């Protein structure tokens, strides 16, 4: 037995594990031991009595659940409580948060840019844009229409800014864009129209397209709605200028195509725009396919959207389509066709590739 017990105060006893076991969970064994010890140490009886009363008072009536009840509770918890993963660990939230970060960085970056980099970035491009220019900024929530002296129209989106010379030169039309704008360019093969952004430059060969190049966003996008544009990386253009080369590495875009420039990869990636439009004027709104060979269906879609569809003709020669389409998007149409023909599609280099096991 612990000799120190003789010096214990009632507080000491009430915190002693062995003593507590005896008071709160008595069994024959500890009862016998403590009773024996008390009879041998009658001086301590008072303190022990107080300590015991103290613990029992503090405990009060203890409504104890027995082991079976507790096991039942455990089983219930395990069976009925689904694992909760907090929403901030959820992938969707993560994506949303990162978009928010990019957007807000983009916004602040934009403000910063306006103060700092006017002469840095634009100055490099061309003399025409570093003096005698007009600068339009759209801080409102509405889109802003701008008509240039050559008749070209620019729709400037919010939080965007465009710079253009008061008078275009005779050889070239150049504008500088930060943010997003839609261009409808007056055709003039003798005076090509260029849109510069921070990393890429777009030469307009035809008419209308969208450029989205917010400062500090990781991607820059050019979407073509009609006509043709070619898109170059700025560094390639500058290299070509220095080396006096005529051969340029660019990407030509036709309607319903887009190019994405990822700043991190410094790479241009050609794709199909998110909502391809019907290109053929006066095209029928409805397509009714009655046991139509799949080859014909794809042919019609190719013409309607101006997008190549690549598929294995031999493999799909037994595929026929019964369907009627109206104003679903191109992607919805593709999904439906793929479902019917047990195939899948992917977009590679602005072309649609159909994978099928045959029908």
């Amino acid at each position, binding site marked *: *037995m*612990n000799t120190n017990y003789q010096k214990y105060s009632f*507080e000491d006893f*009430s*915190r002693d*594990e*062995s003593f*507590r*076991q005896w008071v709160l969970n008595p069994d024959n*064994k*500890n009862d016998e*031991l*403590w009773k024996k*010890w008390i009879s041998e140490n009658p001086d301590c009886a008072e303190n022990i*009595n*107080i300590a*015991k*009363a*103290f*613990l*029992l*008072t*503090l*405990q*009060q*009536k*203890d*409504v*104890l*659940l027995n*082991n079976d009840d*507790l*096991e039942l*509770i*455990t089983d*219930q*918890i*395990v069976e*009925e*409580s*689904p*694992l*909760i*993963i*907090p929403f901030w*660990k959820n992938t969707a939230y993560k994506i949303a948060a990162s978009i928010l970060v990019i957007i807000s960085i983009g916004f602040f970056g934009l403000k910063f840019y306006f103060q700092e980099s006017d002469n840095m970035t634009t100055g490099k491009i061309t003399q025409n844009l570093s003096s005698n220019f007009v600068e339009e900024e759209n801080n409102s929530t509405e889109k802003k229409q701008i008509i240039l002296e050559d008749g070209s129209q620019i729709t400037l989106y919010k939080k965007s800014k465009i710079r253009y010379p008061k008078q275009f030169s005779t050889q070239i039309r150049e504008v500088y864009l930060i943010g997003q704008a839609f261009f409808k360019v007056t055709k003039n093969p003798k005076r090509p129209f260029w849109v510069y952004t921070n990393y890429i430059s777009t030469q307009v060969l035809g008419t209308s397209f969208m450029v989205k190049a917010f400062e500090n966003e990781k991607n820059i996008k050019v979407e073509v709605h009609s006509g043709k544009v070619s898109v170059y990386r700025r560094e390639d253009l500058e290299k070509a200028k220095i080396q006096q080369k005529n051969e340029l590495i660019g990407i030509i875009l036709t309607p319903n195509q887009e190019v994405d420039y990822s700043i991190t990869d410094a790479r241009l990636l050609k794709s199909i725009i998110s909502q391809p439009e019907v290109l053929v004027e006066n095209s029928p709104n409805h397509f009714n396919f009655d046991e139509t060979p799949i080859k014909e269906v794809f042919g019609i879609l190719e013409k309607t959207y101006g997008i190549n569809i690549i598929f294995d003709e031999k493999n799909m020669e037994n595929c026929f389509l019964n369907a009627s389409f109206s104003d679903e998007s191109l992607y919805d149409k593709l999904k439906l066709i793929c479902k019917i023909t047990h195939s899948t599609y992917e977009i590679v280099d602005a072309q649609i590739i159909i994978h099928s096991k045959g029908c």
Partner: protein
Amino acid sequence: MIPQEAQPSTNNDSQLWQQLKNGSEIALGKLIKKYFNLLQNYGYKFFRNEDFVKDCVQEVFVEIWSRRQNISQPDSVRAYLLSSVRKKILRESVRQKINGENEIINIENDLKFAEFSPELVIIEQENTQETIQKVAILLNSLPKRQREVIYLRFYQNLERDEIAQIMSVNCQSVSNLLQAAFKTIRENWSG
């Protein structure tokens, strides 16, 4: 010889907690067996309503189990559980009061640590019964926060930092409360 009981169970608790985080139902079962009744005992000190307290304690374990992948490793599992039960009871009672489900519950901003009732203690020996009467009267003469500190210190056998965590105060306040309580007890203990 008295069996040298109780390895202070802290290491063991931490291991169980880690296993629980990894999804061990056995670890959950062990913690429930070890603490469920102790936690209920604490809960009854605020409300003498067995079903209400049992539900609160069970709910605490449900939440721990559901969120096991993301809960942290507490320094003291026992203090963490007691603190969770305290918060749960406070929240639940506020909710029930607002919903008018339970008119008996009367709380302000904090829980009221109930008075000790000697009638609740069942014991066969006469002399102990008397002492219990005295102890109860003395404890009931203390302010409720001192009563709670005494309960946590002696019945739940906790250290000062654990008590501080449970009652959301600093360690110094716990010491002050304990000192004040003991002063009263010593001054009034006659015999």
